[in-house]
């Protein structure tokens, strides 16, 4: 894989976002993560590889098992970057929704 691995590409995928949510609460092995998804195990492995390459996940060897944990610092970078843009639109749309809920057509 010589594709440039970047956090934004990583979080664009819903399964990868779900994995991040899962691992956010506790570090887990690949097997434990995969058991939460209907997706085939190799697919989950691929997602884990991508998340690890872009440093959203960290790995830790514990005996024979590799545990995945979330890299909070990197996660924060992503959230901070795109969140204000999303918020701006969310505010606008909330306003739109409120206005139109109270809209009375002119007779």
């Amino acid at each position: 894989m010589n594709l440039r691995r970047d956090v934004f590409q990583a979080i664009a995928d819903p399964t990868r976002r779900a994995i991040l949510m899962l691992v956010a609460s506790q570090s887990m092995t690949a097997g434990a993560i995969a058991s939460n998804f209907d997706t085939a195990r190799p697919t989950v492995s691929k997602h884990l590889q991508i998340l690890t390459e872009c440093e959203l996940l960290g790995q830790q060897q514990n005996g024979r098992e590799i545990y995945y944990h979330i890299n909070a610092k990197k996660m924060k970078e992503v959230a901070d970057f795109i969140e204000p843009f999303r918020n701006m639109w969310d505010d606008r749309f909330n306003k739109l929704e409120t206005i139109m809920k109270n809209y009375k057509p002119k007779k």
Partner: protein
Amino acid sequence: MERKTKVNAEDGKQDLVITREFDLPLELLFKAYADPEIVEQWMGTKVLKLENKKHGGWQFETSDAKGNVVFQANGVIHEFVPERKITRTFEMENAPFGVQLEFLEFEKISNETSKLIMHIVYKSVAQRDQMLQLPFAHGINMAHNRLQELVSKLK
């Protein structure tokens, strides 16, 4: 809580997609985009021109409390299909961001709910990333300005 507004901006691409589901019938959602008076209310800007038709133009202007113009934008409407789609260009005046192309699609989910998909294409990846960062940078500036105001009052 489920986030209602989603932004999908894949790395290395010069476009992004904003999606939002509304607790509004499709008719009302579309009206919020077509009626200049309503656009003014939720966009918080003055609508100088809004010609809802092919080859039509639009022009927005925002002033601050002192009447200074702080934001001007304009564009051309390429497609206007009521309750279905609007295709238009968007350009901020006196800003180095260039023109962007916007595809707005309006969808009915149920009688009481609807969805908007806004696909924005920029001239380059760099330009898209710059626009994505703008509210972030703006937020920092606002905080900085407030801080400066506070500090100047302390003197």
